[in-house]
Structures are given as structure tokens and as C-alpha cells.
């Protein structure tokens, strides 16, 4: 800034000479102070912004920033003190309004002041690290107005009272509430938190503690949940209308804690309306509500899950152990399916399809289904029933649905091989008696089993279907080569591959002469076409159609089993036969014969034979006659055997034993497979791996596995380590 420069002269000219005036600063400040007063008095319209700005600009430029700033603080403080007084003086309800109006005024004034003092804000304040005008205004407001002794508590109490009266149902001016809370937030988050939020949360907690206590004493669980839900929504609504959004989480936490978490167990176990009650009454709405509310609190869902698991296990246990239910396997399985449907629906509708609940459901079902060792048999019987008759007139889709459901139960079974055993037996009966309704359904189920358990599981079942098909062709070939047989009795033979079909004790009975002749012809035909095979007759599985003429000349066609046919044929040559005579002539095993005679003589409407004496059971000394009085509206009469649908106790034992026997090679195979790849393994790991490998078929019994290991050691497949007796080595 040397004077020698020509340009400097012009700069001098631009400067205000008033600088030299010692009273310049005071004068200028007076103008600004006056302006600030005018602004607070709503009298700003006559003021020139440019003039004020220029004055403030010049004051800062001429190093009077300090004076300007302190003057501002003093003037503003003065005004705020007056404002505080007028707010303090406001009566009752107008308190908040007055506060709000003054706050708006102050805000507006502050904005104007900041605008005219902008140059100071821009240059002087940053360089001296003072508080910017706007913030200064807020700070002063906070210190002088809000923290005023007579305002501070009154403000808080007024706000809390308003919230309380809204909670108890009154309508309040939400607009003013919003403005006031917004003011507190604008004054800094900590102001909002300390002046309002903390107290608000505290009071709310108190309020809900009392209220929830009251509700829980007098409401049932469903009502209580409804109330809690409503309260929760109210609070969320309140926050969205006039509180800081950050409060939402906190206040909902308070409500959740006071209304739900503290009463969780009591709610769940509430008598006559708790969780268990909701399950039994299918209260989807209440369950959904409970799920949504409990989800909000820690451990809420796990509590529900625990109770649900417990409940399902308990009811399931009762179901599978109820001796009444065990009488009817179809009903039994239907009940299981219904139960599953019920909980599926609940989880779907009320529990948001929560995976953890589905898992809990699955494990509960797995638990109780396997409690009853007869479950595999019953499930197979259920399928049997469906495939025999249940699916008639049902659309294909529905069939699929039913089968899928059965597969779901099947998945729960631990002893899948037992199911396979029974399924094989039942399938065999269905195929041989031609009772199966839909080939498609049968195959579809096999495909499902195959996807579930692999090729091995179903190969034999598929073999059974193939046998049926081949037999048809064989029969056509047989009749083609024996045209002379068309007139006599017809024989249909199903040739079954041994191994694919469930092994039957092949006790042959004496067939009537007509039949044995035919059988011989077939045998020679079959062995003629297939060398090196052996045929044995399974007379216990066949059926026959008989044409019979009764006493009054009425004719009927009787559809009977092979055994029944043998018995009935005897009456072609005799009127009266004793039990002993029948037994001798047919050589049918006693239990089968009894059953067969029972169905011929004792079933009402189907009693083609007459028994003496007329007792309910067939005894060894009974005698049988053709029932001449037999009559039926139908020409074709179907005489079912009194089928032992469920297995009798000894049969069950036998099946069980067969299953155990079948498991042995499978366990051994698994052991060898594992040892072959591992070379050496200790006992516990080996057992674990074997169990894992066999899981898809059955649950291996560790003692049994141990026995198999020992047997393999004896047969030199494995050896024990010399030093560590628990370690096995594979011997190649």
C-alpha cells in the first residue's frame, strides 16, 4: 500500500472518511440497534436493507466487529428477557401458544438479523471463532427462555399432560405440539432429549406399567394383545405426528417392554385364552397379532416356538398313543395330516411363514410320529386305502396333493425301511387283487419315493410293476397257444419275480381238480418258453369269479379269493361239510381258513354258507351248509375276506424281525464302504458316520452297528489296532 502507486489514490477515494469520526462506531451501532428493535417490534418495513447491511459491513471493515457482536448479544438478550416474561405471564392453555408465537417471531427476526449482519457472519465470526448469528440466537433463546425457571418445568409438564390426555382419549392440538417439539429439536438434539424425551419415556413407562397391569388382570389374552397392538400403533402415530422420528424406536421399546416383555409368559400361559388355547381354536388373528408383537421383543418368538413345539409334541403324543386311534390306521394318518395342515395354516397365516417355526413344526412331528413304532405301517395303510378307493372321482391334482402330504409324513419317519416293507406288501396286495384305482397315482408315488430316497429304494417296487405287465403278455401268449381252453374256466397267472415281491410263506393248498389241471398246462407252457425257471403257486394271494346257482334258482356271480373258491368248490359235491373235512380237503392253513369261512358264512348279505351252530366265531367243530336262502339284489356279489388290515401282534413281530434282518447287510455295507475309504477310524466316529449314511433309510441302533463291526472283524474285513482297541483298520 505505498503512496507512490497511482492506483492507491483511487482506493483512498473509495474509503469512507467517516472512519476518522470517533463517534462513527457508536452512531452506526445506534442505527443497527434501532433496526433490531424495529425488527423485534414487527416494524421492519420501513428499513432499508442496503443501508443496514452497508453499515454493518463498514463496521466490520473498520475493525468494529467486536462492538457490533457484543451489541447484538446485548440487544438480543434484552428482547429475549422480555419475551420470557410475556411467556411466563401467559395463562393456562395459552402458554404453549404464546411460546410458539414468540418462537416464530424470534426465528423470523433472527433470520432478518442474520441477513443484515451477514458480512459479520462471513468474515468476522469465523476469524474470531465466535458463534454464528443464527446459532447465537438459538443459544440465547435456549438459555433465556427455555431454561427460565418458570418456563422449564411448566413446558415439560404441559407437554406431558397433553400426551397423557391424548392417551386417555382426549383430542389435543397436535399442530402446536409438533411446533414445540420441533423447536426443542432445533435447539439441539440434546435439548430435545433432556427437556422432553427422557421424561416422556419415563412417564410413558409408568403409564404403561400401570395400564398393562390393569389389562392383564381383567382381559383374556386375545383382548390384551389387541389393546397392546392398539397402544403400539398409537405411539407410532404420535411420533409421526408431533415427535422427533428418532423417538419412535425408544417409545416403542418402552411399550414393548412394559406391555409385552414383562407379561410374556403370563400371556402365553393364560388360562382359557393363552397360546395353547389359540392353537386349539384356530385363532389366526390372535396368533398373528401375538407373533407380530412378540417378534418385537427379545426372546419373544422363541417363547412362542417353545410352547408351540411343546404343545404339538404333547397333542401328537396323545394322538399316536391313543389306543382308540390305533384301531383305524386311515383315520390315524388322516388325523396326522389334519394336524399338519392345521399348523401349516397357522404358520402360513399367522406366523408370516417363519422358517424357524416351520423347522420347529417339522422336528415336533418327527418327534412324535416316531414315538409310535407302527407309524410306518399306518402311513402305508393310509396310502393303500387312498389308492384302493379313496381317490375315486378325485381330480388328478387332488391326488397329487394327497400324495405330497403323505410324502411329507414319510419324510418324518426315521424307519423308512419299515415303511418300504409294508408298502411293498400293500402294493403287492393291491396289484394282485387288481384293486388299484389309478396306475398313474401309483407310479407318481413311486417317483416321489425315488426322488426322496434314491433308486435303490424303489427298484423292487418298480420291478413289481414290470412283473404285472409281463404277466399280461404271458397270459396272452398262453391262451394263443391253447385255443381249446376258451370254453372252460379261465386262469390268469401273474408271474412274480422272487425278491421283488414280499416273500410269502408259500403254503399251497389243494386246488380243485379243474383248476389244478389248468395250472399244470400253464406250468408246462411257461417253463417251455422260459427255461431254467421255477414256478411255485402263491394260492393265498389270488382271486376267483364263480358262477353259483342257489336254492331258488337265482344265479349269482361270486367274486372271491382263491381260498374261498377252494372251499366253495367243495360244496359242488356235498351239502354239508364239517370244519375238519374242509381243512383236510383244502389244506388251507388254519388261520386263513378260519378267516375265509368267517367271511363266507358270517357276513350279513354275503353269507353264501350257513354255519351250525350260529355263533360269531368259527370253531373246529362247526359244520357248514350252502345257504339256500341266500339272496342279493346284485347279480355280482363280492365276498371280501375279513382282511386283517392292521397286522396282528405276531405278524408285527415277524415283520419287525425281517426288517432287522434286512438292516444287517445294509449296516455292514455301510461300515465297509466307510472303512474302505478311511482305512482306519475310531469307534465313535465310525458309528456316527454309519448312522449318517443310513439316516435316509432308518435310524441305526448303535448296539446293532457294534455287533456288525464285531461280525466283520470275525470275518477278517476289519481288525482292531494293537495299541488302541477303539481304533479299527480296514483289511483289504
Amino acid at each position, binding site marked *: 500500500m505505498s503512496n507512490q502507486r497511482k*492506483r492507491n489514490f483511487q482506493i483512498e477515494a473509495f474509503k469512507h472518511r467517516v472512519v476518522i469520526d470517533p463517534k462513527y462506531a457508536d452512531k452506526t451501532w445506534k442505527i443497527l440497534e434501532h433496526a433490531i428493535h424495529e425488527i423485534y417490534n414487527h416494524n421492519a418495513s420501513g428499513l432499508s436493507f442496503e443501508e443496514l447491511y452497508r453499515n454493518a459491513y463498514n463496521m466490520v471493515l473498520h475493525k468494529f466487529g467486536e462492538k457490533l457482536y457484543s451489541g447484538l448479544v446485548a440487544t438480543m438478550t434484552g428482547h429475549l428477557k422480555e419475551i420470557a416474561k410475556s411467556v411466563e405471564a401467559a395463562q393456562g392453555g395459552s402458554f404453549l401458544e404464546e411460546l410458539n408465537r414468540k418462537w416464530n417471531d424470534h426465528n423470523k427476526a433472527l433470520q432478518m438479523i442474520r*441477513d443484515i449482519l451477514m458480512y459479520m457472519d*462471513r468474515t468476522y465470526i469465523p476469524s474470531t471463532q465466535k458463534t454464528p448469528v443464527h446459532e447465537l440466537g438459538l443459544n440465547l433463546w435456549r438459555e433465556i427462555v427455555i431454561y427460565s425457571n418458570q418456563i422449564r418445568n411448566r413446558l415439560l409438564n404441559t407437554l406431558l399432560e397433553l400426551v397423557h390426555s391424548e392417551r386417555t382419549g382426549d383430542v389435543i392440538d397436535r399442530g402446536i405440539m409438533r411446533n414445540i417439539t420441533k423447536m426443542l429439536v432445533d435447539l439441539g438434539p440434546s435439548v430435545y432429549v433432556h427437556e422432553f424425551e427422557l421424561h416422556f419415556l419415563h412417564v410413558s413407562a409408568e403409564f404403561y406399567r400401570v395400564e398393562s397391569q390393569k389389562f392383564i388382570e381383567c382381559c383374556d389374552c386375545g383382548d390384551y394383545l389387541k389393546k397392546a397392538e392398539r397402544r403400539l400403533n398409537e405411539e407410532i402415530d404420535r411420533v409421526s405426528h408431533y415427535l422427533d422420528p428418532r423417538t419412535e424406536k425408544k417409545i416403542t421399546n418402552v411399550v414393548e417392554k412394559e406391555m409385552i416383555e414383562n407379561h410374556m409368559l403370563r400371556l402365553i400361559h393364560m388360562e382359557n385364552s393363552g397360546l395353547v388355547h389359540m392353537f386349539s381354536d384356530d385363532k389366526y388373528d390372535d396368533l398373528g397379532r401375538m407373533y407380530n408383537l412378540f417378534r418385537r421383543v427379545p426372546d419373544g418368538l422363541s417363547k412362542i416356538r417353545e410352547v408351540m413345539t411343546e404343545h404339538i409334541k404333547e397333542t401328537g403324543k396323545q394322538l399316536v398313543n391313543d389306543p382308540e386311534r390305533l384301531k383305524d390306521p386311515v383315520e390315524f394318518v388322516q388325523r396326522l395330516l389334519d394336524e399338519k395342515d392345521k399348523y401349516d395354516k397357522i404358520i402360513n397365516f399367522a406366523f408370516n411363514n417363519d422358517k424357524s417355526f416351520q423347522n420347529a413344526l417339522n422336528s415336533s412331528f418327527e418327534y412324535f410320529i416316531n414315538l409310535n413304532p407302527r407309524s410306518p405301517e399306518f402311513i402305508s395303510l393310509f396310502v393303500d386305502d387312498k389308492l384302493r378307493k379313496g381317490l375315486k372321482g378325485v381330480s388328478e391334482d387332488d391326488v397329487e396333493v394327497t400324495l405330497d402330504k403323505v410324502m411329507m409324513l414319510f419324510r418324518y419317519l426315521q424307519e423308512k425301511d419299515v415303511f418300504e416293507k409294508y408298502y411293498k406288501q400293500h402294493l403287492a396286495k393291491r396289484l394282485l387283487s387288481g384293486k388299484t384305482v389309478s396306475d398313474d397315482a401309483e407310479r407318481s408315488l413311486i417317483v416321489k419315493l425315488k426322488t426322496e430316497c434314491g433308486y435303490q429304494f424303489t427298484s423292487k417296487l418298480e420291478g413289481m410293476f414290470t412283473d404285472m405287465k409281463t404277466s399280461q403278455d404271458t397270459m396272452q401268449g398262453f391262451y394263443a397257444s391253447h385255443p381249446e381252453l376258451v370254453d372252460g374256466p379261465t386262469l390268469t397267472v401273474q408271474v412274480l419275480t422272487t425278491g421283488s415281491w414280499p416273500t410269502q410263506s408259500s403254503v399251497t393248498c389243494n386246488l380243485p381238480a379243474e383248476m389244478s389241471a389248468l395250472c399244470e398246462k400253464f406250468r408246462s407252457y411257461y417253463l417251455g418258453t422260459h427255461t431254467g425257471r421255477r414256478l411255485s403257486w402263491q394260492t393265498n394271494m389270488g382271486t376267483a369269479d364263480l358262477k353259483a346257482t342257489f336254492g331258488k334258482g337265482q344265479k349269482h356271480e361270486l367274486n372271491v379269493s382263491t381260498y374261498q373258491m377252494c372251499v366253495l368248490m367243495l360244496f359242488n359235491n356235498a351239502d354239508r361239510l364239517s370244519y375238519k373235512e374242509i381243512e383236510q380237503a383244502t389244506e388251507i392253513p388254519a388261520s386263513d381258513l378260519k378267516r375265509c369261512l368267517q367271511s363266507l358264512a358270517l357276513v350279513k348279505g354275503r353269507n353264501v354258507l350257513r354255519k351250525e351252530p350260529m355263533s360269531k366265531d368259527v370253531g373246529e367243530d362247526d359244520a357248514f351248509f350252502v345257504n339256500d336262502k341266500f339272496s342279493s339284489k346284485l347279480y355280482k356279489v363280492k365276498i371280501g375276506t375279513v382282511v386283517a388290515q392292521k397286522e396282528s401282534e405276531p405278524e408285527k413281530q415277524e415283520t419287525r424281525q425281517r426288517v432287522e434282518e434286512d438292516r444287517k447287510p445294509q449296516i455292514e455295507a455301510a461300515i465297509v464302504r466307510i472303512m474302505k475309504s478311511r482305512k482306519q477310524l475310531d469307534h465313535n466316529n465310525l458309528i456316527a458316520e454309519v448312522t449318517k449314511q443310513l439316516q435316509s433309510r432308518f435310524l441305526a441302533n448303535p448296539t446293532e452297528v457294534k455287533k456288525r463291526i464285531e461280525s466283520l472283524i470275525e470275518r477278517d474285513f476289519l481288525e482292531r489296532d494293537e495299541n488302541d482297541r477303539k481304533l479299527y483298520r480296514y483289511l483289504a
Partner: protein
Amino acid sequence: MRKEDTVKLISAEGFEFVVDKEAAMVSQTIHNMLTSPGSFAERQHGEVTFPEISTTILEKICQYFYWHLQFASGKETEFPIEPELTLELMMAANYLHT
């Protein structure tokens, strides 16, 4: 051009420049003048007097306002400033917060 959309800027010597508000508001100071709550005289009358800015400088400033708008909308041209105006212009710019 509607009156509400313009503002009259008056120099120390009393010359009047009528410019678009949009252009004038390139200056933060003028922007505050015209938008500050409450109603200052400038906002009511739509005119601002600058007793400390000479006509030459104010004219240059008005040119600058329009140049700035163009520049901001992507038209990059030079803004010529005569060397003898530089200093005064800078002071005015500081005042106007431009």
C-alpha cells in the same frame, strides 16, 4: 418482462439499472435483500440504492450478472475487465458477496 421479476439497481450517481431478479440474485447480498423475511424497503419497492458503487462499476456488475448466468448454463466465454476497474470491482464484489 413483468415488474415482479425485475429489480432496479441504482448507482451512487443515481443511474438506474433494471435487471432480472434472477440475474441480480447472483449476488448473495442482493439475494438476501430480496428474500429476507419481513419486508425491508428494498423488497417492497423492488429497487436497491448503492450509495457506494459508481455507475461504471454497477454497469460492469450488471454485465457480470448476465455473464455469470450464461457461464453457469455452460457457455464458457471470457469476461473482459478493464485493468483500471479491477480494484473497485473487487471491493464491490466483496460487498455484494458475488
